[in-house]
């Protein structure tokens, strides 16, 4: 009886979960009158399905989805690869080594960053140049400062992880907007960053890194250190240990993390909205444009939505399989 109730709860939630997806799917096969005349539910019974919306989608009448699709795929994959590569490396270092960062050095970085920027700009450098100069100056100064026995608290590995994570706490509009300003400044210097593959890839890499570091750190922490020590004793260089032993061992974790990252990049809207104009538009932007001048052509919108969802559905299946074998477990502390 109790199991029955539990099963019913699951069924209810299944319905809640699947109905909207089902609705989008059937709607994409409806002819316009079957949509506008009020809801219809079952193909062949309520209405005669048609492939028109799909034909339209593929023929590009409502905007060409192939290009955003390709863009999303390229940017998604490269950002994922970079984020997972950089993030895993950082997470690994954070698990296996200790880092000590003086708070004062961090503060110095921020102060020098702002001050340097203002100073250089007043000295007549262009905004992008003064930004770059301030960055280098601040970074160099704070690295040096970190060596000095400055007073004040010393931050350890957990703080560094938190620093990475705090990235996610910033409202994206703050960073996206700032990044937009930065990119356009750089653009004015002649290095195009807005609406470029690298611009998008770096942006997504940076904003996926916190999650990757967070997740991968847990996966690495779960790995037995002795295996690496065995290799160390065998005189295997760290880089090779990482690449040939750690990475293969953490592969399930890496795959799970990569999929979560890919999902994030694939679905991301705000950065894409702000930082792309034409060449590197991504799928969510394409989707948001499906509101039409002519009114909502729900069949077309549904087809477009299905196109955007499909790859993620495949991922859901894979992720669920990983989840079953308990691999996502590492994601918890």
């Amino acid at each position, binding site marked *: 009886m109790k199991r029955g109730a539990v099963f019913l709860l699951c069924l209810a939630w299944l319905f809640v979960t699947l109905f909207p997806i089902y609705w989008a799917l059937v709607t994409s096969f409806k002819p316009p009158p079957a949509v506008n005349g009020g809801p219809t539910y079952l193909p062949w019974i309520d209405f005669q399905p048609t492939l028109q919306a799909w034909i339209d989608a593929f023929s590009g009448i409502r905007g060409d989805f192939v290009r955003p699709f390709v863009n999303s795929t390229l940017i998604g994959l490269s950002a994922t690869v970079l984020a997972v590569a950089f993030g895993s490396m950082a997470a690994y270092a954070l698990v296996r080594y200790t880092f000590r960062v003086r708070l004062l050095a961090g503060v110095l970085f921020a102060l020098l960053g702002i001050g340097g920027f203002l100073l250089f700009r007043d000295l007549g450098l262009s905004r992008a140049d003064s930004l770059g100069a301030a960055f280098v100056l601040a970074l160099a100064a704070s690295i040096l400062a970190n060596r000095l026995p400055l007073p004040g608290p010393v931050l350890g590995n957990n703080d560094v992880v938190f620093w990475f994570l705090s990235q996610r706490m910033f409202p994206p509009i703050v960073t996206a907007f700032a990044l937009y300003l930065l990119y356009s400044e750089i653009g004015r210097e002649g290095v195009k960053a807005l609406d470029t593959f690298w611009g998008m890839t770096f942006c997504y890499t940076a904003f996926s890194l916190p999650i990757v570091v967070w997740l991968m750190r847990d996966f690495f922490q779960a790995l*037995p250190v*002795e*295996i690496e*020590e*065995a*290799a*160390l*004793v*065998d*005189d*295997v*260089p760290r880089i*090779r240990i990482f690449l*040939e*032993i750690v990475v*293969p*061992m953490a*592969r399930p974790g890496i795959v799970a993390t990569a999929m979560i990252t890919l999902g994030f990049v694939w679905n991301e809207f705000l950065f894409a909205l702000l930082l792309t104009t034409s060449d590197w538009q991504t799928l969510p932007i394409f989707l948001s444009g499906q509101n039409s001048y002519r009114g909502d052509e729900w069949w077309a919108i549904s087809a477009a939505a299905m196109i955007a969802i499909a790859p993620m559905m495949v991922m859901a299946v894979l992720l669920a399989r990983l989840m079953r074998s308990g691999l996502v477990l590492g994601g918890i502390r």
Partner: protein
Amino acid sequence: MARVSLKGVVKRYGAATVIPRLDLDIEDREFVVLVGPSGCGKTTTLRMIAGLEPVSEGTIRIGDRDVTDLRPGLRNCSMVFQSYALYPHMTVRDNIGYGMRVRGESRARIESKIAEAARILGLEPYLDRRPKHLSGGQRQRVAIGRAIVRNPDVFLFDEPLSNLDAKLRIEMRTEIKNLHRRLESTVVYVTHDQVEAMTLADRVVVMNSGVIEQIADPITLYEKPANMFVAAFIGAPSMNFLAVRLTGDAVELADGTRLPVPQERAAALAGFNGRSVMLGLRPEHMAGGEKGPAVVTLVPRTIEPLGPHTLVIGELAGTRITAQVDARFPCRPDEPTRITFDMNQMHVFDRETGKTL
């Protein structure tokens, strides 16, 4: 193959001093076993030798090199970990050969070394399996195989058998001993199982809280423990201790019972006459019934028949005592029983310092 020597080695973790000061010399080709209770610093010592843990003070030498600040890879030690630490994604062959490949040895040489190790360890049928398809004992042997292809100066073993079941443990013990004989290498072996220590070692180092309590060969350890700690640690069931007063030719228990001391022992202890000391006697040096001059009455609380003999646990003069008696010796809980002590085997310790007198 080489000598290993630790001089004035200190290890601190933050504020906690784990090893206050350690001096240890291990001869070339010697099989040294470190034993001690959990947390006494055995693993730490081993890892410092391997270079996996930096020393806080002191120097470590292997052969004629000072390796104190050398990174692990350059010390030419091989280590077998408690958890085996096999590379899970590699086959047995690759596990054994990986280090050589990294060092860039020739393929032919790698192959022949793997083949040789596999032959020695009886791993030929499993060369293409992954670790997870091996049994515990097989994994153990792979870990050893990985260590021997290196021709290391020193073998380091960290509780390699503790994950195995009793039967396999006994088998592997024999194999390791044989291996040592064949490879003629210096071995430092950590365990907290004293049977393992006794059966394997040329010399046993008994540690406690980071301090070496005694270094000696197994039989000396059993027969002439340097102090109460060693006496209690070596031998199972543990040695019994009774607070007694020495009165020339006998010892007097708290309840007034007097136990005669054999002549030669009494002579040796003459200097301590009248002193309160600790009397140590192993359960196996007791017997049921009245078979000698030193007889006490024990009220058994628990009777533990082990088959060949039976343990009688009871109280004597306010101290818990375990006696090992013959399996057929009749005794029942709560019925006072006569137990004979073999006072020839007695040990006497200083009450304050615990040192053997």
